[in-house]
């Protein structure tokens, strides 16, 4: 539908709805539930340079307004993505976004190199790359997304190899989102994904022990939405960068709200666990809400919360 079209950092999207990494499987698991061509883009689970086993269970606990997870990025590694996952996904999505993370700074460059080679061999296998900068850095134990310098270096190392749109996915658990965002722009990011899960903790009050196997975790779900809204709004105003929102969106109303704050597209994450076809329901309702809001299309809804001069209205 023409009115749902959008674009973010050079990634053209038929609808503003994307899956959120880590909530839509490693490859085509969701094909049993929906046509993989329904989302504007499918974003795959984070892939690291080396395979990872992930964290000990329990990996998810329910808390007020959402869930805490400490999944620990289990994945088969970049070579498996290129050899197995990309061929399996070929031609099955409207757009495929590969989400990658290094566990060390230099791995962002090595991953970028491998992805570039994969694209040369099979052009069109993926349309954009999302960098998960919330992955802990094994060299310092500190997520890249907390330091402007580190974040910029990671983006730069990947950018040097890749010409497809590059989105930097940031952590909400930082003091100044705009500072990190601008560093990513310096590093060559075409856009931002705001955001990943927020750091959180749940304890068993009887024993005093964490309820998650790995200790603390990342919070997601409806209660994350106001936080993500603020990040989107602030980053739009202060950086003008193209933004994909992520955080607690469950309904078409939520999507409209994120668009108004300045997001050009919205990822649906935790909501999929509750209802595997939630994205379809949202898409079906969007035209009606656009009409109710008195705007012609998604493009006209983007950034409505800001004065006309603010942000990038490209």
């Amino acid at each position, binding site marked *: 539908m023409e009115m749902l079209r959008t674009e973010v950092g050079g990634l053209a999207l038929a609808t503003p709805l994307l899956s959120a990494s880590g909530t*839509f499987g490693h490859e085509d*698991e*969701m094909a049993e539930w929906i046509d993989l061509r329904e989302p504007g883009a499918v974003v795959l689970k984070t892939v690291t340079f080396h395979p990872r086993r992930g964290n000990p*269970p329990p*990996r*998810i606990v329910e808390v007020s307004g959402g*869930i805490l997870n400490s999944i620990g990025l289990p994945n088969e590694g970049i070579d498996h993505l290129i050899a197995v996952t990309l061929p399996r996904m070929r031609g099955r999505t409207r757009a495929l976004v590969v989400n990658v993370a290094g566990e060390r700074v230099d791995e962002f460059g090595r991953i970028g190199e491998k992805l570039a080679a994969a694209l040369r061999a099979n052009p069109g296998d993926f349309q954009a790359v999302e960098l998960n900068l919330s992955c802990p850095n094994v060299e310092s134990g500190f997520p890249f997304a907390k330091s402007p310098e580190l974040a910029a270096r990671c983006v730069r190392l990947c950018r040097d190899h890749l010409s497809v749109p590059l989105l930097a996915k940031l952590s909400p658990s930082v003091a100044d989102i705009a500072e990190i965002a601008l560093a990513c722009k310096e590093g060559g990011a075409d856009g931002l994904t705001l955001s990943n899960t927020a750091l959180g903790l749940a304890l068993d009050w009887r024993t005093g022990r964490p309820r998650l196997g790995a200790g603390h975790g990342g919070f997601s779900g409806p209660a994350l939405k106001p936080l993500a809204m603020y990040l989107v709004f602030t980053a739009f105003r202060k950086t003008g960068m193209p933004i994909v929102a992520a955080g607690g969106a469950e309904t078409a109303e939520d999507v409209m709200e994120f668009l108004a704050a300045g997001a050009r597209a919205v990822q649906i994450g935790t909501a999929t*666990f509750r209802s595997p076809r939630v994205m379809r329901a949202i898409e079906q309702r969007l035209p009606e809400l656009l009409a109710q809001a008195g705007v012609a299309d998604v493009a006209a809804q983007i950034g409505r919360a800001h004065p006309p001069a603010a942000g990038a209205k490209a």
Partner: protein
Amino acid sequence: MTSCTRDVLQTTVREVAAIGRDAWRLTVALPAPLATPLAGGHFFMLRTAGADFPFLNRPFSAHAAGPDGRGPELVFLFKTVGRGTGCLARLRVGEAVTAIGPLGQPFPDPRPGETTVLVAGGVGLPPLHLWLERRRQRRLGGAALLLYGARSHDQLLELASAQALGVEVRTSTDDGSHGLHGRVDRLLEGTLAGIAGPVRILTCGPDPMMAAVTRVAATRGVPCLVSLETVMACGFGVCNACAVPIADGDGRLARYVRACIEGPVMDGKPVLWQHATH
């Protein structure tokens, strides 16, 4: 004729019956018969339709699935242990329940010439009950018997229903109030000693009980399939919450598998039970 495949099904509560201390039987009506008959171990992610609370759906194994395994009614047994099961226990007749499923890899059908020993612990009965129901409905061959253990006789849920499925049922209770005084793995040891010929064990219950059953099976070199009840968030393979630790040949953690799509039924032998805390 329309029928339901694996789907997000809108079901209607027919009955919520108290069947023991904190234990309930929930019967729901499907909107249409299932396209494929259920087998023991198939599960559904349940929630009160439209409710915001609890946040996630909860997994439950089907206990009974109608005369041909396709409905029109599905039966679940559950214990109230927290918020989600508490909500299910408060459901009223006529209310809508969303059931995502059927999900997971079920127990295999019996093999002719082999004795299947089913070992149930407490509220772990449902997948084994459905296995027996299917065996009887389809007149599948092979001998079978059910060992059913619980803390006390009032926690041997739906015992009469299990006894009506055409196989011998032996019980054990920790307090000696019904059957053997002791744990069900002891009952299993005694039972295995009396069976000649090939045997396969299918079990479902609390982790420590399945760990003990798996040890007994391994000692005797008997294959043993378990139905795991890990914490789940999605139930269909996309979140990685339901990690089951799997050992390498030396008993060290080799990898995790997803209980919801690679299980919940799987070989019990390589499961690292001491890591499978939830």
